[in-house]
């Protein structure tokens, strides 16, 4: 209801602006509708995506009077395809989409693109990812997430014995592993073992307990995910083992960023794979309409190493993630 009255007000403002061009605010009152389609919050990272999409939607709408942003969440690819079509019916100037599964959504996205709208694709790319299907591609860097962690370990503890907890057997996980191997290549860092923890706290706890039984001396744990780091830390503290120097997670959850900020010895760093990347895409898309800046192309975010010094830039205490 609030949004509708706001929309009417904006429309009235636009009408006023059109009838009296001397007003000079016409640029900012330009009426633009951006649809944002994201997966429903079903685990930590996607809940962060929802949080940041809604946060930045408010900021952008406050900044640009004529801008209307509609955020829609969908639990799976099929319902997301429907949601995209529903959004398209409302007349979109732009679509920002983080597809839950990109390939089944190609047709729905293509339709929006063919209608002349600006399409920004986030994080997950379909097999064909070029300007026929999207104008802008914003993503994190999975190989770098592994590589940055590997380089940090190789630099801080050059002859560390490392155990690795993987996610699920999907391509993203493999890219992170390959990146890690590249990061430690040429150093004396030795990977003792790799096992799947399914990006789940309880499974990570179980795997870590078994690693602790299997290896009398472990220097570093790389579990590439902040959720799994929770289980890993609990297993280590239960076993009262003091040989483990530190744990490297990844993603940038508020709990782990907080530990880095507080100077926790066990979590000295975190590697960023920020759910806020959806907001990057929204900002750039708005920039395309209001600021006439060229934004088309690939925009790959760094897997930034979060340390005690820069952690506060990535800390969102109100986020669920």
């Amino acid at each position, binding site marked *: 209801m609030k949004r509708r009255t706001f929309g009417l007000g904006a429309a009235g403002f636009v009408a006023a602006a059109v009838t009296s061009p001397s007003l000079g605010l016409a640029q900012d009152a330009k009426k633009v509708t951006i649809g944002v389609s994201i997966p429903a*919050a079903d685990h930590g990272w996607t809940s962060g995506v929802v949080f940041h999409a809604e946060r930045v939607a408010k900021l952008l709408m406050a900044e640009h009077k004529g801008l209307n942003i509609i955020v829609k969440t969908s639990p799976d690819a099929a319902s997301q395809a429907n949601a995209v079509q529903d959004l398209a019916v409302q007349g979109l100037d732009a679509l920002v989409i983080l597809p839950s599964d990109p390939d089944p959504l190609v047709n729905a996205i293509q339709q929006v693109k063919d209608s002349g709208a600006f399409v920004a694709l986030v994080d997950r790319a379909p097999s064909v990812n070029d300007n026929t299907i999207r104008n802008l591609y914003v993503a994190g860097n999975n190989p770098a997430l592994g590589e940055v962690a590997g380089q940090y370990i190789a630099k801080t503890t050059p002859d560390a014995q490392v155990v690795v907890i993987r996610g699920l057997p999907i391509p993203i996980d493999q890219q992170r592993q390959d990146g890690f191997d590249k990061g430690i290549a040429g150093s004396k860092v030795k990977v003792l073992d790799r096992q799947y923890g399914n990006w789940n706290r309880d499974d990570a706890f179980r795997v870590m307990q078994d690693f602790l*039984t299997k290896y009398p001396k472990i220097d570093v744990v790389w579990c590439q995910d902040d959720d799994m780091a929770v289980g890993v830390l609990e297993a280590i503290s239960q076993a009262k083992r003091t040989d483990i120097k530190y744990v490297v997670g990844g993603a940038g959850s508020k709990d782990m960023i907080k530990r880095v900020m507080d100077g926790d010895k066990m979590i000295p760093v975190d590697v960023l794979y920020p759910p806020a990347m959806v907001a990057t895409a929204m900002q750039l898309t708005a920039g395309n309409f209001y600021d006439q800046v060229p934004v088309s192309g690939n925009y790959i975010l760094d897997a930034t190493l979060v340390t005690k010094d820069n952690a506060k830039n990535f800390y969102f205490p109100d986020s*669920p993630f």
Partner: protein
Amino acid sequence: MTGVSTPETGATPKTSRDWDMAAVAPFIALALLLLLGYFANPNFISVANLLNVITRSAFIAIIALGATYVISSGGLDLSVGAMVAFVASLMILFLNSGAIADPTLLLAASMLLALALGAACGLANGLITTIGRIEPFIATLGTMGIYRGLTTWLSQGGAITLKDRGMQALYRPVYFGNVAGVPIPIVIIFVTAALAAFVLYRTRYGRHLIAVGSSEDVARYSGISVNRVRTVAYVVQGLCVAVAVILYVPRLGSTSATTGILWELQAITAVVVGGTALRGGVGRIWGTVCGAFILEIVGNIMILSNFVSEYLIGAIQGAIIIIAMLVQRSLMRR
């Protein structure tokens, strides 16, 4: 299955050797696994590792005790994994609310709350299947969605974490503490199992439950209130979930939308590996506990051994479970 209405007493029944072997088979499978584990990695047999593994199996073992009741009564409950997440989330939210000033009282109240919530969730499942006359598979698939969805909503997709450090320290020993060297979760497994065995084998309700599971019609003609017996079985399942939750919360002090995912299948597998028939009419409490140990130990051996690729673990786990079942069957036929 013969002699289904015979209450199993743990003492060897004199009439039939079949009973004897069927009850012992899961333990033989467990012994073989222990041997296999020893060859995979000598560390496996260390007391520390075995205590770890058995402690870890507590959640599934206790949930599976309830599942033994539901399955012996001819029902099925797919909602238990989601129920764990739901009850645990509400318990943590209650602890965070600080409704009672004294921490010990608050903790005790939250445990009672968990038990009440578990019983209520179980009662809902029971009433939907009995009064609502919906197939248990569908009814509990529905409540699984409801409990899981409510958890996701409560947590906004993120995690629900026990905030108060003091409370964490107070509650932590429930999972990590021990009594005379035996971790508390292991004590709880055996206490709960003994209670479950007593009710199933030594009380009128237990006999009614088995009767309903083996033949609903015969039970009804004998004057047993089938709906009541079945509903109570789901309530028992709910209570077991609550006990598992009380042990689960102090471990990580937090829940998320993925807590307890697929635990229902593990619980059902533990029940079946323990020798309880999926079609109902037979309940083996100690077999179920053994089944839960077997599942956890298989996973443990996989990680401790050096000869299994991480990509093949699922396949080998599946194969070991099938072989364990085959060993059991062959023992029973003899």
